[in-house]
């Protein structure tokens, strides 16, 4: 069985990617289940709570965003995640110490894959990546960002089926992505309003409410009646149907936003990410890569 285990399962881009991966594998006859410590993923795919996770012989385990140092930690993964979430000073010291220790590399009967959906937010160097059979990158540019030598494969995330709406609104901007400093949500809003957009709608999970209150609330006052907050919406088609333009201040090569804008006839305003061969892959081709790499 393929078991995907993630350090969080809140509705952000990486969780959506894992939900899509889980659904695509199951749809194509490969038994897969997604485990996460939060609730959002539970009704999105074949899923379970983190407390139900236990590695078994012949499992293929895809790990996301969990700072692991040994295979043994997988067997008490819930404790590990709770410990990571506390982020105590003692834990930081422990992490600094343990990452220099050689972790167990024996995992007979298990195939371990580390899936990488981030760059700076989850530096692979800071965990015992040697314990994984392979690292999955969602985009080839991540190989250079993480700067580690390890067996890997590159495969873009599965895509949602999207179409162009017949009735697009006019001068309505969307800022799509989690609300946080790293995503420069405020800059995207300002850019949209400088371009004379009448309304800006924020579609994203509110990761950092302090950032929202300090950076976005002043913009709401500066541009009265122009900014709306919708939060994270599952239905991407509904999002793209509700906006004419999308503004994005941060370019992540593996982000699907630019591609989704093209599919839905939405104007994209953001960093021009260089096209890579893998970006044009179909879901069928993406599955074929996973099938080969996981030896399904």
């Amino acid at each position: 069985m393929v078991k995907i285990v993630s350090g969080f399962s809140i509705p952000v881009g990486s969780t959506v990617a894992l939900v899509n991966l889980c659904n695509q594998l199951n749809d194509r006859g490969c038994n897969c289940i997604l485990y996460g410590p939060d609730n959002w993923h539970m009704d999105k795919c074949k899923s379970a709570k983190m407390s139900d996770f236990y590695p078994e012989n012949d499992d293929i385990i895809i790990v996301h965003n969990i700072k692991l140092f040994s295979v043994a930690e997988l067997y008490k993964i819930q404790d590990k995640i709770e410990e990571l979430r506390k982020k105590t000073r003692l834990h930081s010291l422990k992490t600094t110490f343990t990452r220099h220790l050689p972790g167990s590399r024996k995992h007979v009967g298990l195939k371990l894959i580390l899936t990488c959906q981030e760059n700076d937010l989850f530096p692979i160097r800071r965990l015992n990546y040697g314990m994984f059979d392979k690292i999955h990158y969602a985009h080839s540019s991540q190989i250079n960002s993480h700067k580690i030598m390890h067996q890997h494969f590159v495969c873009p995330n599965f895509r949602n089926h999207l179409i162009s709406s017949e009735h697009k609104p006019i001068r309505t901007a969307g800022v799509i992505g989690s609300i946080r400093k790293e995503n420069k949500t405020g800059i995207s809003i300002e850019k949209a309003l400088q371009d004379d957009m009448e309304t800006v709608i924020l579609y994203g999970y509110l990761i950092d409410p302090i950032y929202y209150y300090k950076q976005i609330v002043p913009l709401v006052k500066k541009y009265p009646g122009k900014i709306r907050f919708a939060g994270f919406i599952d239905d991407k088609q509904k999002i793209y149907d509700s906006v004419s333009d999308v503004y994005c201040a941060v370019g992540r090569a593996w982000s699907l936003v630019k591609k989704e804008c093209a599919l839905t006839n939405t104007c994209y305003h953001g960093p021009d990410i260089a096209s890579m061969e893998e970006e044009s892959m179909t879901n069928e081709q993406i599955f074929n890569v996973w099938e080969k790499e996981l030896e399904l």
Partner: protein
Amino acid sequence: MKNFEDDFYNLLNLLKIREPFAFNRFSDGELYILQNKEVIADAEQVKVGQNVTAAGIYRAEDFKRFHPDEHSFYRERLVDAFKFKKKNYFKGLSCRCCVGDENFQWQLDFHGEYDENFTWANLLVNGNYAKFIREMYPVFNEYKAVFVCNENADLSVLPFLVKDFRVGYNAMIQDYSLIERIKSWISENNIEGHLFLFSASSLSKMAIHQLYEFCDRNTYIDVGTTLNPFMGMRIDRTYLKSFWLGAKGADISKICIW
């Protein structure tokens, strides 16, 4: 044993599957009115019964004045709301960890027969507030929503609203007639499947009861002060300051007990 988080997810699930319900909250202010105590909350004083507990900290939109003799009609309506029973009519009580064992037990005794739909008045705040903002608020987008709130609130940030009704100072008494206006609006426009949000102090409790009794094909939620940061309203409640400003305080992680 009732669970603070499970009850939250129960309401969230109803909202997601579009099964209409009402969530009414009887916090400490309503508790004192139910106990027929004089309540004055304004900029000068906070008075409950004979006790003046603090110098007034309240601002105009939160001013409340209830006198048992003068306002008995409104207390009776609040009692009606408290004792009303119907499928999916959820009543949030003040919990023992927030108002003490004695007051908690008083509510149960005053209510009489135990109601399976009892829940916490604090269900959307304290340890559930982050989940409310991050998980429940986005589901509001699935609805045509109506907001009953203070006249000073700026609602432009909320993308899901199709209508609003405004109230002023001491709304329970000054704006009581609004309930009939809302009923008329529902009838005249065949309003069904809508989401009604309330942030109108004690008036919310009477309105939610009477509107759910009148038309149970809509959903009615007392959101209290939870959406203040989106409405240009003050965020002086401890749980709001912790979540939005990072201020220290235990409320934001508090899991209320039954």
